[in-house]
């Protein structure tokens, strides 16, 4: 028997009997629910208190970002890429910038690459901190949020110092980065690299051996490696199942091949394993930040191409040609050779890809994001199967889906 439950969603009730003598019960979870990390909606079939079927309903945060990008010029699209996965703007910028740079056939200078790596790794930490804080609250450790957001605040202050904006930095652009790092930024980064390992120890002291946290996560939401691969999981979801797949190592970009770091994996395949992977990733990110800071090369932070990037301010006062370039760039933008390109980066959530198609004009023909959160929702049913409703909260938490990234 199929029933319409509103907004075009139907649920088939088979009238089947559950293992506990009762009938299966269909319940609605979300979209306004404190533990869905946004506006995720789930239709869950319960047998007693155990999950038998789970169907995510998405689209409550559909923003039309991909369509909007078609109406914007190439350099304007950067601003909307910031806002799909709103916890990791530099990754979104970077995947788009790499794809456009592929089409333009340009290579950014080494200092720009190092600054890109610094911003990405800072964001990986801040994104994991949001995950850790909110997951902590859901599993009863409400102090975690205060600790995690203390460090997140320092990262946001650094974002503000380098780009002028706390969250949506728009810092990485096709052809380079927005501006060079200020001396104060490098000072803050140095202090952060010294302090952060101690702070991660603090989080671990609160959670890693905590009996309540362990009993809520160990053995919960098991996702064997084969299933994770088949369902397309990436990032900590895949590495938490013991598969050492990290785009920074497997398909290096932006000079990641020159940094010394380990790919965090765990063979536990459960929520606790994914927690360990994320904690380890934060430590590795600090290691990368330290290497990038110590070996920060000198030189320009942008490509020297007046057709793509505006001329420096001082040139505008002396050169007529610079004024013309500046005017053309800000009235009609630049054109990109016809063709298509795909670039992917490893964000805090997994493979964050961007596919762009150009028809040779000053606006993209199509921009498509391969978002990690969307694909990482696929294994949700597999993980939640036969678990209690309360465990479902822990499982949604470790999937770490950002709904802006899912719906775009």
């Amino acid at each position, binding site marked *: 028997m199929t029933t319409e439950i509103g*907004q075009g969603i139907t649920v088939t009730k088979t009238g089947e009997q559950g293992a506990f003598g009762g009938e299966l019960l269909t319940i609605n979870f979300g*979209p*306004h*629910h*404190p533990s869905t990390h*946004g*506006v995720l909606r789930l239709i869950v079939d319960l047998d007693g208190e155990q999950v038998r079927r789970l169907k995510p309903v998405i*689209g*409550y*945060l*559909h*923003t*039309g*970002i991909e*369509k*909007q990008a078609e*109406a914007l010029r190439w350099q304007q699209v950067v*601003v*909307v890429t910031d*806002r799909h996965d*709103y*916890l990791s703007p530099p990754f979104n910028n970077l995947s788009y910038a790499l794809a456009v740079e592929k089409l333009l056939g340009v290579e950014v200078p080494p200092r720009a690459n190092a600054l890109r790596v610094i911003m990405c790794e800072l964001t990986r930490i801040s994104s994991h901190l*949001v995950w850790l*804080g*909110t997951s902590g609250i859901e599993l009863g450790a409400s102090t975690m*949020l*205060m600790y995690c*957001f*203390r460090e*997140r*605040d320092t990262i*946001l202050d650094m974002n503000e110092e380098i780009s002028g904006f*706390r*969250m*949506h930095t728009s810092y990485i652009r096709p052809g380079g980065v927005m501006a060079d790092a200020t001396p104060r930024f490098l000072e803050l980064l140095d202090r952060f690299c010294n302090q952060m390992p101690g702070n991660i120890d603090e989080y671990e002291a609160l959670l890693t051996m905590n009996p309540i946290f362990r009993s809520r996560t160990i053995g919960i939401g098991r996702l064997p490696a084969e299933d994770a691969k088949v369902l397309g999981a990436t990032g900590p979801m895949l590495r938490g199942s013991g598969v050492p797949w990290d785009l920074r190592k497997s398909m290096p970009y932006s000079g990641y091949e020159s940094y010394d770091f380990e790919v965090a994996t765990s063979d536990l395949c459960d929520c606790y394993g994914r927690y360990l992977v994320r904690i380890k990733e934060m430590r590795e990110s600090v290691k990368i930040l330290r290497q990038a800071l110590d070996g920060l090369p000198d030189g320009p932070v942008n490509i020297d191409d007046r057709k793509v990037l505006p001329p420096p301010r001082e040139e505008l006062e002396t050169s007529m040609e610079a004024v013309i370039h500046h005017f053309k760039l800000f009235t009609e933008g630049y054109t990109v050779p016809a063709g298509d390109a795909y670039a992917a980066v490893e964000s805090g959530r997994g493979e964050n890809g961007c596919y762009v198609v150009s028809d040779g004009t000053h606006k993209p023909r199509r921009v498509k994001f391969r978002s990690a959160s969307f694909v990482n929702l696929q294994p949700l049913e597999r993980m939640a199967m036969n678990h209690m409703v309360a465990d479902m909260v822990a499982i949604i938490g470790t999937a770490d889906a950002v*709904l*802006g990234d899912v*719906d775009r």
Partner: protein
Amino acid sequence: MGVEALAESLGQNILTTTLGKLIGWGRGNSVWPLQFGLACCAIEMIHTATASVDIARFGSEAMRASPRQADMMIVSGRVSQKMAPILRTIYDQMPEPKWVISMGACASTGGVFNNYALLQGVDKIVPVDVYVPGCPPRPEDLLNALMILQERIKAQGITPRQ
């Protein structure tokens, strides 16, 4: 105790006021927000609740998950066409008196997304008391909006909403 002494001690302990001012004072200093995160602004809303900004100084740290217990809805982020009816339902479920803060450019006007998918301003479906500009606004901006709202609630007293 003599009558003069009694009058003197009462003079130090009794405050005369109107009922409206008393209720306004009470309501204004305990505005419980609805925990209603939509998009990017929700993260800055969480920042407002944490130690560095600390919304608890203004009596609004009790984020309620149920609309039945909330006084104020902070629309923190973009509202899609699909979300709009749900947002209105949640607003209707909140008991009177209730207030709405529209946080960020997307909630207030649609922001950078002028397209088919987004509601161009949440004031099309719910009455908004305070708009906060920014994309997303800083936690201090949200705090300022709360203070503006508190002044209004205090001035409103027991008079019903117009």
